[in-house]
């Protein structure tokens, strides 16, 4: 049995559920929004992990769960909890359910895509960049500073630079322009991340186990995810191929981070150098699959079903 967790209408979950149906692999869906109809418990005793889950009145032993795919949103943002006090029973039950689910999935023997602990490196981008370097990728020159003069020096050295958050919050890439100089003293309040701008071709690589799905992105936007609003035209996504060594490095890096599934952002320079910006441990791959037809969901489904190629 495979456990899917999240909101059933969310595109990645829809695609993976569909792929599992095609494979004939049985799954059960834990609908986050119907937390009130879900209960769960687990026990650790005599070096054994056992447990029980109930969804819509149907019971499942946790020992029967062979794989888990989580696309959980922050439960505090669920519409069902809007204006509901934290001390109320619905809120407490929802909090307890997410806690039980997370704790169990961190230690259970199932194939979990992905465990919370393994996803952590993405919470600090400069930290993750240091891990990325170990796998042979170039990383952009990065400065995190609270000193406006350092930013101006950095810009003078690199010419075009961008800024973005260091954490995973408000993670939008923006170019640093002349009009930004005026508000630069604000960095004194919180060290801010600046990076040299790297020219080249954007490639998003989805890695599922040892399978690699590279997608080339054609856009003039600084952050192609927001191309429509930034440059008035959506990005064009095209399936592409990577040199074997680069593809192997993507697989090795994903594995080393403890991830079964990752979305890796690369920039291929005309001179052959390969920059890596980020490893996303919970990729919203449906955007890429919808635009390219690359069978990413099927690869995830095969991994969950234990039928990897």
């Amino acid at each position, binding site marked *: 049995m495979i456990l899917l967790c999240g909101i059933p209408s969310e595109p990645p979950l829809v695609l993976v559920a569909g792929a599992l149906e095609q494979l004939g692999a049985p799954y059960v869906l834990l609908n986050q929004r119907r937390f009130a109809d879900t209960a769960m418990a687990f026990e650790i005793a005599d070096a054994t992990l056992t447990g029980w889950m109930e969804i819509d009145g149907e019971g499942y032993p946790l020992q029967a769960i062979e794989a888990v795919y989580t696309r959980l949103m922050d439960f505090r943002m669920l519409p069902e909890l809007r204006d509901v006090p934290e001390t109320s029973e619905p809120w407490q039950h929802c909090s307890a359910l997410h806690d039980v689910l997370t704790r169990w999935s961190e230690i259970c023997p199932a194939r979990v895509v992905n465990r919370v602990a393994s996803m952590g490196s993405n919470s600090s981008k400069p930290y993750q960049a240091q891990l990325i370097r170990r796998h042979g990728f170039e990383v952009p020159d990065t400065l995190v500073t609270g*000193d406006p003069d350092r930013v101006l020096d950095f810009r003078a050295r690199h010419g075009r630079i961008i800024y973005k958050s260091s954490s*995973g919050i408000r993670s939008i890439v923006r170019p640093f322009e002349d009009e930004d100089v005026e508000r630069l003293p604000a960095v004194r309040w919180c060290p801010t991340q600046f990076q040299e701008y790297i020219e080249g071709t954007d490639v998003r690589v989805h890695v599922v186990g040892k399978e690699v799905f590279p997608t080339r992105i054609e856009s003039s936007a600084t952050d192609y995810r927001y191309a429509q609003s930034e440059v008035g035209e959506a990005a064009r996504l095209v399936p592409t191929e990577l040199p074997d060594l680069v593809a192997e490095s993507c697989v090795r890096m994903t594995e080393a981070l403890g991830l079964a599934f990752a979305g890796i952002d690369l920039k291929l320079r005309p001179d052959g150098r390969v920059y890596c910006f980020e490893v996303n441990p919970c990729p919203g791959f449906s955007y890429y699959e919808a635009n390219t037809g690359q069978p990413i969901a099927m690869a995830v489904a095969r991994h969950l079903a234990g039928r990897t190629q």
Partner: protein
Amino acid sequence: MWLVLCDRNDAAGVWIHSALRSRGLAPLGLVTGEDLAFCDGWEHRVGRSGATIRFRLESGLTIRGEDLRGVVNRLYTAPIPQWRSARKVDREYVQQELLAFHMSWLHALRCPVLNRPTPQGLCGQWRPESEWVWLAQKAGLQTPRYRQSTRDRIDEASGQRRLLPPGALVRTAIVVEGIATGERIPPAVAEGCRRLWRLAGSAFLGIDFAEGAAGPWTFAGATPVPDLRLGGELLAATVLARLTAPAAST
């Protein structure tokens, strides 16, 4: 120079600073999370040539990562007193930004850092009680039965614990460098503590025991930020040796 990084109210952090200084470790600074909030000149670089850090304390002293020879790191949060009057959403954003920043530069240090930061904690990996029990069983320690369900209303954030009944007498072992210090620990328990320390992967590990169904040394929890004072002289000497070992890195 060497640094002890800790919270302003961390008595164990102040103790290890004092214990190391009295053993002649110099120059040795004590820098609190609040001190870091008021540092300026932060300059953390990551790129082709590696990663560096430089910052200036309010006292005017400039700290460069390459000059550091060892750090005892007990920072578990990033205080933001200067953001006290900001909107909650902005405070939460800044908090996450600073945690991400501190994790990165602490990770970049090439000297011994006890404990190194992880994505699950600035001063080592925090784990829920369920995961500690799971690891403690693997380490061969006597563990209580652990049960958790959606009916529970235990708030660990406010100090409530599943493994430890209120008022229970707790005995604590502190493991550093594979040496179990603390109260008189039976050899078999000490060996289990060492195995758990290896599984936990942090330089310091505090392991709590209480009288329970599995006997007088029943596992009751663990932390990467233990009360180092319980380790006494042996612990201070072990930490000193670790921080001054030639070409050491952790």
